[in-house]
């Protein structure tokens, strides 16, 4: 039976494009916007490891479940919309607190999505794979604006997170390595984001295995005697 070895969680305000990022990576397409209900679980085979990815709902309504999805996570992808400064603020205000239940050596990536809507992004646009049908704005390219959130702001948030988690900058990947700007629509940097993280998560998985059972009550890495069902009624 497929059993996840490590967990990655996507967090961020609603409408920043968490589901779209994941769909772009997993299914190579940019689907119609759907509003996620609760959280959705995906399994990704990476080398010999099964990595589980939780795509969570950004709506406030499901906030209460956030810490549950984060439990024992090996990495958290904090997503914001480069055109909405508030979505970056929300990461600190609303979502950082949810990561308390994550694994101690949890990695953090900060991702500014929707660069295709900015002036810079419009110029870059590397692989213009046919814009999927049903794009709400329809027709011509949507108007582009100067980017509202600069990469430096994301780096500053990353450093804040390290402080919050009481981590030393020397022990963790550098901010430049962990801050991304992506476009789920064009696919820009999406593979890079997920694959960089997968590679970084593998050593965490190995370390967790070496340490035996993980520190928290983590049903994803707990090895029950028969299937997984015994995990939660013990």
């Amino acid at each position, binding site marked *: *039976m497929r059993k996840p070895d490590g967990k990655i969680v996507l967090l961020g305000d*609603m409408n920043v494009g968490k589901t779209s990022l994941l*769909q772009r990576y997993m*299914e190579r397409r940019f689907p*119609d916007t*759907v*509003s*996620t*209900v*609760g*959280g*959705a*679980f*995906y399994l990704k085979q990476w080398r010999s490891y099964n990595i589980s990815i939780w*795509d969570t*709902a950004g*709506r*406030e*309504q*499901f*906030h*209460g*479940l956030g810490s*549950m999805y984060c439990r024992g996570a090996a990495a958290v992808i904090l997503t914001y919309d480069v055109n909405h400064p508030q979505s970056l603020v929300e990461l600190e205000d609303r979502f950082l607190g949810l990561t308390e239940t994550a694994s101690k050596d949890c990695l953090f990536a900060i991702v500014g999505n929707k660069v295709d809507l900015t002036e810079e992004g419009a110029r870059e646009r590397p692989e213009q794979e046919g814009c999927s049908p049903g794009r709400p704005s329809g027709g011509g390219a949507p108007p582009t604006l100067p980017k509202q959130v600069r990469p430096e702001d994301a780096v500053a948030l990353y450093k804040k997170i390290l402080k919050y988690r009481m981590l030393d900058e020397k022990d963790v990947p550098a901010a430049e390595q962990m801050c991304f700007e992506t476009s789920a629509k064009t696919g820009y940097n999406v593979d890079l984001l997920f694959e960089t993280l997968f590679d970084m998560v593998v050593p965490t998985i190995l370390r967790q295995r070496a340490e035996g059972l993980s520190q928290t009550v983590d*049903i*994803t890495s707990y090895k029950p005697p028969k*299937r*997984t*069902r015994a*995990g*939660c*009624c013990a």
Partner: protein
Amino acid sequence: MEAGGDTAAPAPGVVEDLEDMRIPSEQTEDHGGVHPGPPDPEDGGLEETGSTAKDQPPSLSPLPQSEAPSSTCQLWGPGAPESSPMGSPESGSGGQGGDPTDEDWRSQRKHVFVLSEAGKPIYSRYGSVEALSATMGVMTALVSFVQSAGDAIRAIYAEDHKLVFLQQGPLLLVAVSRTPQSAAQLRGELLAVHAQIVSTLTRASVARIFAHKQNYDLRRLLAGSERTLDRLLDSVEQDPGALLLGAVRCVPLARPMRDALGALLRRCTAPGLALSVLAVGGRLITAAQERNVLAECRLDPADLQLLLDWVGAPAFAAGEAWAPVCLPRFNPDGFFYAYVARLDAMPVCLLLLGTQRETFHAMAACRRLVEDGMRALGAMRALGEAVSFSNAPSGNAPAYSVQAVGAPGLRHFLYKPLDIPDHHRQLPQFTSPELEAPYSREEERQRLSDLYHRLHARLHSASRPLRLIYHVAEKETLLAWVTSKFELYTCLSPLVTKAGAILVVTKLLRWVRKEEDRLFIRYPPKYSTPPATSADQAPHNGLFTGL
């Protein structure tokens, strides 16, 4: 019933009486079969046959005594002046379409609004709620005006419009309709809208939020759920049945297969599992309940229907979802945790409802057992056949053609059995064939839905219930019939004779009896065998309240 003694304004009662008076007169007309009158361009319905002139004058005067109500009438009435007194300041915002002075907005057949007690807009079916603050203010004024007299407003009848009010805790729901739906049916729809809101937030947390902060903007918490409400309201007009009859629709399936699937669901358990449901395209394949959790409580069909609608949301199309959901009839204050996944890349959907928040992986394991079991049974193929039959625009809804009945002249029907043995009554069901031509276009479906609603309202009129209605409409003939054994609505070709209609209905009833094991869940797998661990679990163990 609506306007009975408890409405402050006595006038609506008068109108209601007149409405009821209308029915017998039409009845005789119907039986006479003298039809149709000049087609009404707007409504094309039944009641316009000559009676229009009679009932307009009284309905013009329902609210003579207070200022506020009459100004509302102007807002909705067709003859309202362009600059209605409530006209919102940001006029000319045609793009938003939410402006009450906007013609497109005003011409919608049915509006549904949800607002807070403080008059804060929460949901509007059409237009943007921002533009509607003033209109919603009027609604709040109406409600509190009547409330101040120690009474509650239930409905206003204004010309061709019905305004129905429903207060649920700190929420006020309002329907403004010129469809032929009765006030009772509209109230049912508002209750379903409220149930939908409660299912995402719970009643307790809505109450707590507003107790804490009266002018809270609930849209923050409901963001993303508006689409679900839109879909619910659309389904009433496009695919009538579930809400009208208070029943769920089942996938036609051979009984041995359905029984085997029921047994499979009973076998596959997980800690805290309360309910397992297999569904496809919003229709029920089978469901199994857990004894310890739901033993004392019947699963309300409204709750089951809500779940069937919910799992149809596009959000559940990919991945395995884990989300809280509240069943308003079962317990409006607590959450269940729902595991939702599509099986084998099919539209078949498995819903596992549990009481414990951390059991996602146990549920996922349970799902694999169900999937393996279904493969062993060859169920996917059987269901695939049922699904591929359909060409419904609703996607992959399994259905059958009305041709299967073999009764020429029969176009469509709704059949709800009432003679199910008592211990099965907890699962009211109905069946209906796919809507085919001439009911493939949206307007035609709406028209048929209107006709069904009219017939239903008359069969179930509180003051003067009927058992049998034979109605010759402009483009079709309808026969509705309720007995102790069934409730039936048939839509027949317009050229059918009365004798021919009786023949068709006889044929249909014979067909349903022959097929009932396939059409309905005759013996629902009620309780699963309790897993060994659940004995020590209190029923409410995992019901978390609030957010």
